[in-house]
């Protein structure tokens, strides 16, 4: 358990360093890469919390698709942050600080990690899903069954995200060169 705590602290401090660097660097180009790094780190944190499916999504969307979208945006705009007067950054700092404090305060009400007396553990629906999933859906993973069948429409939206990732990869590897015309480049 102490190992887990140490790793959590380590990853969180990496996250903090990356976050500070993102805030400080003015050239947006390294910032795009640093946000990718941030996603990889948070995905590792999710894995540490045993939420592998969330980690997968975070890695694919945060590190993969978001980087590509950032870069595509830079292709159309400038990749340098406009300098902002100090008074306005102070307002930003205050707003961020307050939001952070509110979130921290809210987190105090959350049950502890892995606590047994939470709705997740005690709700009667949980038993039903875990017991009947094999007969009803016949897939080995209960989470998959819930995602893909019991709340299939919701998942359909998420799958769209994965499709976007696929399109991003195709775009990158230059397979769809034929479809490109010069007139789709905005001035």
């Amino acid at each position, binding site marked *: 358990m102490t*190992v887990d705590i140490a*790793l959590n602290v*380590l990853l969180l401090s*990496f996250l903090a*360093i*990356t976050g500070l*660097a993102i805030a400080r660097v003015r*050239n947006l*180009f*390294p910032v*795009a*890469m*640093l946000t*990718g*790094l941030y996603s*990889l*780190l948070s*995905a*590792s944190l999710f*894995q*540490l919390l*045993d939420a*592998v499916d969330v*980690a*997968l999504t975070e*890695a*694919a969307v945060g*590190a*993969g698709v978001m*980087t*590509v979208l950032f*870069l*595509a945006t*830079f*292709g159309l705009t400038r990749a340098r942050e406009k300098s902002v007067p100090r008074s306005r950054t102070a307002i930003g700092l205050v707003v961020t600080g307050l939001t952070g404090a509110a979130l921290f305060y809210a987190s105090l009400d959350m049950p502890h990690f892995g606590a047994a007396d939470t709705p997740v553990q005690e709700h009667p629906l949980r038993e039903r899903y875990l017991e009947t999933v094999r007969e009803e859906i016949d897939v080995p993973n209960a989470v998959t069954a819930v995602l893909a069948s019991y709340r299939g429409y919701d998942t359909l939206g998420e799958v769209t995200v994965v499709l976007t990732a696929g399109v*991003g*990869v195709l*775009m*990158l*590897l*230059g397979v*769809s*060169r*034929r479809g*490109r015309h010069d007139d789709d*480049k905005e001035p």
Partner: protein
Amino acid sequence: MFLAAIIGVAVTMLLILIRALLGPSAYDRILALNLFGTKTVLFVSVLGFLNGRPEFLDLGLVYALINFTGTIAVLKFMQYGDLGWDEASKDKPDV
């Protein structure tokens, strides 16, 4: 012993992070970030074993691929200022 391995990876990640912050050029940062990605792959792989759930290696596989596409995307952007475009398409239409 997985602990020693994970500490090694973590220290490496820290060193790489320092290089990513120091720069000085954008290429140094890309190198550092690409490397940080592969270290993350090792990190999650060892972490799976450390927590006794090595089945989670799929995560490592996905990271390895994402990291590669991310790096290539960044480089493509740097070279052409744009994505999804290839030098070869100018004179040699495919198919």
